[in-house]
């Protein structure tokens, strides 16, 4: 109650002060009335308001007024005058035209007062920009007073970086802009417009920063770039401000990554924390602001009136504020209205365009997040500088409520050239130390081929997160060609061949403004015209020429920001991937990075029905949805679905002939092939830390466990009618859309790179067969529609105990069909013993369905023993050489076989 009274008094004083200050101009009492009222009721309302105002002013003693005015620094300067003019303004669900102007209220003294010159400057900024603001953003949803308070002393670092903020209610019933004192006038002006636009929305704000801040920042950029709106200010300084905190500039493509998705851009737990020391900007918030601004800027480039129209329609239906599908539909409606003939953005429907912009995904998702922001270094190049790029890494986790933890870690980046040979730029670029969420390296990719640009695939892994970005070495600026190109990028999914060439064309309005040959997956050109450097829609085409035949193999529309443009053109890099799930439990894998970051959407289930999990070896537990990360390429998951279904997962995929990588933590990792075809292990390379890639076979028993496993669904649950459990079986290759458990033995983790069959074969070496086996027998059991297997072997290097490089323990089942060799209290999938003249193995089958028929096939894979015999549950032994087979009907869920070997 105290706050309310105080708030009322403050509001009244604000009115008094405003009217007092304005007395020299006009002394106005503004009164809101319902738009639909009759003339009589309007008159009644006005009378009542004037009377109330008069009573309230009378209630204030002269002494109190004097004190208050003195505190405001207006002692003797302001005279309380009764209103001499009444403005009647419609209220209630008013439309934009009914909103009225903002009236800025500043404290003149006290801790929230700005220096006089700064206050005057801010007022002037508003006065000058108001017309353009109304044109770009629409008139205020709610006019009237907005307090502008000096929070220079206590605004959060991140909010200051973001450019101030606005509160629809500061707790005292006032609308308030909280703003710091920026030393640079252009920065102050741009940021003040940003907060003014936030205040334009009154109390009709969007619930998500992707809309709220994104739309405002895009509009701010457009206003700030309108010279008439910013008279007397330095254009270069304005551009510098926009470049540093408002837009991502040429590099939208490179930064469009899933980790940007968030409900609020500044995590609530970080809002009031100071920025960490040591260069970290303290999280991903700034990049989110910039990417969101740039995303909506793309729409503005094609539809200059989009934001105004969008806002005006939103103000009519403010309940859409937290309804993303509704807002997306609203976006399409606006396009329909503004350009009925072709209502698309960058060649896509609004919904399709929207889902391609990760920063506009408003879902609150949890788990580890990694973002890699590459930027070319184009100044100060010298010596052997050819492809210098700064890779800034942000590593954090998101928890319940959107809290973010700024994490510490180490990344061993892997740089591949266009033929996927690992590059080692220099020792200092082989490791990124990430402290307080931030770390970076700035490698120089060497000139490999007489100055010809080439594509670099940068895999940046941290724990089991990995981000792949492609950059064009030698295509931006080099020591010998220091003038930067203004169109550059990379192309994936092309097939170089003798007599075949590729080029990229940039067209504006149907006219070719520039072309650049694609060399080793990279291209760069300096177009240099004023037309190119302006913000506009651009059509990019990749053309293939073979002999005299030229065909366009790829085209993409990009609404470019002012200046240069960097793109990553992924031919065949998007797809709808079909992932089949059966009723019950599944261990699946994603060869696709879904556009949607919300797992229930991907699974076509309500959040309350979603069962999805991924093993986290760091804590020895599953991360269960909703703690689970968003599904991502190369990761495997347990999921449970209530009915058979095929997911059509839209997202980014590895383009044709492009290897893709998966990062492993120490311990067991639930992974998947990132490719959409079967990949044998001899097409998988393993990289540990700063080392050279080795084959999968070479890594087994060293960086990786001896075996990797897939999931075998168990029998049907008698009640649900579907498998709810299962067991593991060793795998020999990676099938698409399946999950696998792969064990990493390296403390620093490792990275698997999967080479498709149409990729450069240079490093895809043949996998070595399991080394050193003097004898090996494969035992395969089938029955009840299921199959499982085990290996018994002898080797000169094995011991009687468990040998990590040779033996392979049997994974614990959860009720499924399993076979394993019993050694003391353990069971092994692969039981390798010291080479000897003979030995006896005890093989146990579990998970049998009583009454079902089973066949066990024993195959000598390496060498022939003089005699092998097998008996079951103490029964008669059956001898064989080469291949033996026994069949039986299960009398119990478990049976034991004894295998005797004489060599």
């Amino acid at each position, binding site marked *: 109650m105290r706050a309310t009274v105080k708030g009322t008094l403050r509001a009244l004083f604000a009115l008094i002060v405003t009217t007092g200050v304005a007395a020299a101009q006009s002394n106005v009492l503004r009164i809101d009335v319902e738009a639909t009222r009759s003339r009589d009721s309007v008159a009644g309302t006005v009378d009542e308001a004037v009377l109330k105002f008069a009573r309230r002013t009378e209630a204030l003693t002269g002494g109190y007024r004097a004190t208050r005015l003195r505190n405001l620094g207006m002692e003797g300067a302001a005279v309380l005058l009764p209103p001499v003019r009444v403005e009647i303004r419609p209220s209630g669900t008013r439309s934009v035209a009914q909103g009225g102007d903002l009236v800025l209220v500043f404290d003149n003294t006290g801790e929230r007062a700005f220096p006089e010159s700064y206050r005057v400057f801010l007022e002037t900024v508003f006065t000058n920009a108001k017309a353009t603001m109304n044109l770009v953003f629409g008139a205020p949803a709610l006019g009237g007073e907005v307090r502008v308070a000096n929070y220079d002393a206590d605004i959060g670092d991140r909010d200051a970086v973001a450019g101030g903020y606005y509160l629809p209610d500061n707790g005292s019933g006032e609308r308030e802009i909280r703003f710091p004192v920026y030393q640079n006038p252009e920065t102050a002006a741009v940021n003040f417009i940003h907060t003014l636009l936030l205040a334009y929305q009154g109390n009709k704000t969007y619930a998500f920063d992707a809309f709220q801040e994104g739309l405002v920042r895009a509009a701010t950029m457009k206003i700030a770039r309108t010279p008439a709106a910013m008279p007397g200010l330095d254009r270069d300084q304005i551009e510098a401000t926009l470049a540093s905190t408002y837009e991502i500039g040429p590099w939208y493509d490179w930064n469009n990554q899933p980790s940007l998705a968030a409900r609020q851009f500044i995590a609530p737990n970080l809002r009031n924390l100071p920025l960490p*020391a*040591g*260069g970290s900007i303290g999280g991903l918030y700034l990049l989110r602001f910039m990417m969101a601004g740039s995303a909506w800027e793309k729409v503005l480039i094609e539809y200059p009136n989009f934001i105004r129209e969008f806002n005006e329609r939103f103000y009519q239906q403010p309940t859409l504020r937290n309804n993303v599908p509704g807002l997306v539909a609203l976006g399409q409606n606006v396009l329909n209205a503004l350009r009925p003939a072709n209502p698309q953005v960058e060649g896509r429907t609004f919904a399709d365009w929207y889902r391609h912009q990760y920063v506009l995904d408003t879902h609150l998702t949890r788990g580890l997040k990694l973002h890699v922001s590459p930027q070319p270094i184009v100044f100060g190049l010298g010596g052997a500088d050819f492809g210098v790029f700064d890779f800034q890494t942000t590593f954090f986790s998101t928890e319940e409520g959107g809290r973010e933890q700024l994490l*510490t870690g180490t990344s061993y980046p892997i740089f591949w050239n266009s033929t996927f040979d690992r590059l080692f730029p220099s*020792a200092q670029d082989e490791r990124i*130390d990430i402290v307080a969420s931030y770390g970076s390296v700035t490698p120089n990719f060497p000139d490999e081929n007489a100055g010809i640009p080439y594509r670099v695939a940068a895999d940046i892994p941290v724990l089991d997160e990995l981000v792949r970005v492609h950059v064009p070495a030698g295509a931006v600026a080099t020591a010998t060609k220091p003038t930067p190109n203004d169109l550059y990028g990379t192309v994936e999914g092309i097939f170089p061949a003798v007599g075949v060439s590729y080029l990229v064309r940039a067209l504006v309005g149907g006219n070719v403004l520039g072309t650049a040959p694609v060399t080793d997956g990279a291209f760069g050109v300096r177009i240099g015209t004023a037309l190119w450097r302006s913000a506009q829609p651009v059509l990019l085409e990749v053309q293939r020429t073979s002999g005299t035949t030229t065909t366009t193999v790829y085209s993409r529309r990009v609404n470019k920001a002012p200046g240069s443009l960097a793109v990553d053109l992924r031919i065949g890099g998007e797809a709808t991937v079909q992932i089949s799930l059966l009723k019950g*439990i599944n261990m699946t894998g994603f060869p696709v990075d879904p556009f949607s970051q919300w797992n229930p959407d991907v699974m076509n289930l309500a959040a309350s029905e979603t069962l999805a999990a991924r093993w986290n070896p760091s804590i*020895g537990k599953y991360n269960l949805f909703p703690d689970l990360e968003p599904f991502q390429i190369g990761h495997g998951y347990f999921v449970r679905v209530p009915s058979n279904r095929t997911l059509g997962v839209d997202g980014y995929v590895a383009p044709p002939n492009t290897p893709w990588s998966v990062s492993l933590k120490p311990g067991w990792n639930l992974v998947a092939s990132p490719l959409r075809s079967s990949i044998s292990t001899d097409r998988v390379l393993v990289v540990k830390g700063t080392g050279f890639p080795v084959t999968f076979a070479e890594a087994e028993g060293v960086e990786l466990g001896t075996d990797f496993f897939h999931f075998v669904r168990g029998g049907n649950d008698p009640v649900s009618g579907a498998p*709810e459990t299962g067991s593991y079986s060793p795998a020999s290759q990676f099938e698409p859309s399946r999950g696998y458990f792969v064990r990493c033995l390296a403390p620093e983790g490792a990275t698997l790179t999967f080479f498709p069959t149409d990729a450069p074969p240079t490093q895809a070496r043949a996998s070595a067969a399991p080394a050193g086996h003097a004898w090996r027998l494969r035992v395969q059991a089938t029955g009840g529609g299921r199959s499982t297997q085990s290996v018994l072997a002898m080797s000169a290097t094995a011991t009687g105990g468990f040998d990590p490089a040779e033996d392979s323990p049997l994974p614990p089942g959860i009720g499924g069909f399993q076979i394993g060799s019993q050694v003391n209290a353990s069971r092994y999938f692969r039981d390798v013993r010291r080479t000897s003249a003979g030995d006896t193995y005890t093989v146990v089958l579990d998970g049998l369905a009583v009454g079902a028929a089973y066949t066990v096939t024993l195959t000598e894979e390496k060498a022939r023993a003089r005699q092998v015999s097998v008996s079951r549950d103490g029964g008669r032994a059956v001898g064989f050489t080469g291949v033996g087979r026994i069949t039986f009907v299960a009398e119990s869920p478990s049976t034991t076989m004894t295998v005797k070997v004489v060599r």
Partner: protein
Amino acid sequence: MTSARSLLFVLIALLALALAGCGGGGGSGSPGGQTVRVTGYVVSVESGGAIAPRPTVQIGSASVQADVNDGSFAIDAPKGSTEVLVTTEAYGTFRFTVPPLVEEGTDLGVLWVGPQKVTVTGTVVDATSNARIPGATVLFGGQRTTANAQGEFTIPNVAYAPNGAFGSIQGTARANGYFAGSFTAEGLTPSGGRVDVGTVLLTPVGDDTPPPGPYNIWGRVTPAADAPGATVVLSEGGNAIRQTTVGQDGRYFFWVPAGTYTLSFTKGNLSAGATVSLTDSNQVVQKDVTLSP
């Protein structure tokens, strides 16, 4: 920024030196093997870089000055030495205890020095079981110690400087049967001369098998002799939705969406019942029961 980059440079240079050392083969020890070549870096926690004037590194009777550019040093130390003294004009002397120096080419890593000294404390814990790990070796800022029986460690005399590179120092903890774990004191400031880094989690290496599948309702059934093979039916709203069998270890598991469920256990003439509520599907609830006639 400068500090972090300097540290990065030092660490990378250290790595490069270590790699170079791999191929170098040694040979710098004195005849008879009375000394061993030892390398390392001396770095200021104030600046994250090398120190001027050059610090003196002393091991036994041998001493050398660290490089002014990157803080590196190489010294022929008396074999078996266990102490390194680093003396700087600004910070005085720092004493580092090391394992007996017996191997040629031993790399001491980065020895941090600074204007203040603090004690770093923490606890080494098994990441999967939350059990404390006794005897873990913990290194931080060049200082090292061994965790006690409760997994707690105390490292005195760690270099510290306000607003310096202290937060970027990476500590490591190692224990038999675990992957090495790292930690930092990022964002922490001393209280009473102590900096508590909290829990340092280590992941077990000896986890030889993939984990069983996920679940969010589980429990143990007793008596142990009767539990295996007992049937467990999970019902929601009176309708059975799942059924499983208690394993040989007396445990059962279900993975279901959030909701309120009843559990019915039966084996022969033994039975038990329980109710379980999951407020969210990421909640894991343990419900133990005892079968009775």
